[in-house]
């Protein structure tokens, strides 16, 4: 833990725990000894700039390498490979309600311990379960294993209960409908709002505030889902949408006929372009942007850039909000520009809009790779504390342990980032063969996105190799 976790956006948990948990401080020092992330690759003397440059070279080189793979049938053989897994409808009928009941129970304990538990972050059940167990650990399973959120979602059970009560009380109760032209933009706004809240408020270190946020989110979710039905989880609730998006990367997939299948990771992305709804592409781009933003605000460069602006009298919260929105707009703009350029490089009449939707799934492995790089060390470091507190939420041990990660762990993080990009190149390559006839047009269609991806890899590696600096003024 230590620097790794802090950079991941869970800085508050580490910040507040600094005085209380000596073990964590030791872990932090161990990480500091191994130098910056770049320094821990293979040998201590590889400078950061070279690590960043190498990342760009690997991504560009992977593209050149995939251009050698032009056998469309063989590519489909890899991408469409699947093994049907036995599923039991009966087991499902029992297991899903049980899971939902358990997760609702955990939600109640989170609120209770958040409101009344110890305020030491590494002893507080709510903080550990939400940030370590759920946002770091559980999220990882959604792209490494499969999206189980529809079965686990703790707000499903209360929603069902309230709906039933409503139907009994009112004969003419019916679902509301969200305007079609909103598409999934509500979820985009919700995702940006959640990340803003996480960055600028002490919700990561203050269990009382966390409990209030969880309660508020629960009330809004249940109210929305009662009013609008499943459309709420599909188009508004950012949490469900994040897991659904990550779940497309995973090896376990629901097939068209509803059966459970095992696939190669990422290959499910080559089958569906995004649905034709407003905001679908924007949500994927937003998911990518928030990972970058979360890391960016914890760099010394950010601190140095923000301080003069705030000293001029500009409110700090405004600076954070403007950069969040401007960065999102810039990411979306660059993606759209690249899509428009594909029309020329691939010499095609396919609209830029269709190209955007077609290739957007290829961004998901990148987002998943960053998530893993950010949170794997954080999760492993705090997992012992989570385990200890989970056993007795109301009487946690005084000195929970933390796992000290070895110095080479920094290279694992770099590999996660690069792995995501390389998988993205394969997915985009496969998708291009499905969209454009022949081989050359498909290969040429990738030029704009490869250029963007090389720069994006390098800037993201720059962010994660920066030393941690707490975001100022918040």
């Amino acid at each position: 833990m230590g620097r790794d976790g802090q950079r991941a956006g869970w800085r508050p948990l580490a910040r507040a725990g600094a005085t209380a948990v000596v073990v964590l401080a030791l872990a932090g020092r161990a990480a500091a000894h191994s130098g910056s992330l770049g320094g821990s690759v293979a040998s201590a003397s590889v400078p950061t700039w070279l690590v960043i440059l190498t990342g760009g070279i690997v991504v560009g080189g992977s593209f050149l390498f995939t251009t050698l793979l032009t056998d469309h049938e063989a590519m489909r053989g890899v991408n469409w490979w699947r093994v049907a897994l036995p599923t039991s409808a009966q087991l499902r009928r029992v297991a899903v309600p049980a899971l939902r009941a358990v997760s609702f129970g955990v939600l109640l304990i989170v609120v209770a311990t958040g409101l009344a538990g110890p305020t030491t972050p590494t002893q507080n059940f709510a903080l550990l379960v939400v940030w370590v167990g759920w946002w770091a650990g559980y999220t990882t399973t959604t792209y490494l294993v499969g999206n189980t959120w529809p079965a686990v979602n703790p707000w499903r059970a209360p929603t069902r209960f309230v709906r039933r009560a409503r139907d009994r009380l009112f004969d003419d109760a019916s679902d509301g409908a969200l305007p079609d032209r909103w598409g999934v933009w509500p979820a985009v706004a919700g995702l940006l709002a959640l990340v803003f809240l996480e960055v600028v408020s002490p919700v990561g270190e203050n269990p009382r505030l966390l409990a209030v946020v969880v309660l508020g989110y629960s009330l809004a979710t249940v109210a929305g889902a009662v009013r609008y039905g499943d459309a709420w989880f599909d188009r508004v609730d950012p949490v469900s949408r994040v897991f659904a998006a990550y779940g497309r990367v995973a090896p376990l997939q629901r097939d068209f006929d509803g059966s459970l299948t095992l696939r190669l990771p990422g290959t499910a992305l080559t089958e569906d372009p995004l649905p034709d709804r407003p905001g679908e592409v924007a949500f994927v781009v937003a998911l990518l942007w928030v990972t970058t933003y979360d890391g960016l605000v914890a760099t010394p460069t950010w601190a140095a850039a923000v301080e003069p602006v705030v000293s001029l009298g500009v409110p700090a919260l405004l600076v954070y909000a403007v950069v969040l929105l401007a960065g999102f707009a810039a990411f979306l703009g660059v993606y759209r520009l690249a899509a428009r350029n594909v029309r020329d490089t691939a010499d095609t009449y396919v609209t830029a809009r269709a190209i955007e939707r077609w290739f957007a799934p290829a961004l998901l492995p990148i987002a998943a790779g960053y998530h893993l790089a950010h949170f794997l060390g954080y999760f492993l470091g705090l997992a012992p504390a989570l385990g200890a507190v989970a056993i007795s939420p109301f009487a946690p041990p005084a000195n929970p342990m933390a796992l000290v990660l070895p110095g080479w762990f920094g290279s694992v993080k770099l590999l996660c980032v690069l792995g995501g990009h390389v998988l993205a190149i394969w997915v985009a390559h496969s998708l291009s063969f499905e969209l454009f006839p022949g081989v050359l047009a498909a290969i040429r269609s990738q030029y704009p996105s490869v250029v963007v991806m090389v720069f994006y890899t390098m800037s993201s590696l720059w962010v994660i190799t920066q030393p941690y600096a707490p975001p100022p003024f918040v």
Partner: protein
Amino acid sequence: MTDHAPTLRPVRDTAVPDGERVAARCPYCERPFRSDHGRDLHVGERHDPTDAERERYEAALEEERDELWLFHAKAVVALGVIYAATVILYMAVLGTFF
């Protein structure tokens, strides 16, 4: 193998700029193309071509093959150069380059 290919809806997902004459159009799904070459490949890949169309498809494939060979030659050279440059760069930076 069942067909899992994602599908394009040509009418909605393609657009021809105003004033531009479409060079070729797929006789089966109406998708417009900027060249006969693209259309011939598309018909052969995606539809059940007639004998004449199959012949044009094979010809287009042949044309692709030549161009692709040249492209691949360039790609392999570029990969080799990038690899060598990276190795030299690392040796220079790490100080083991004599």
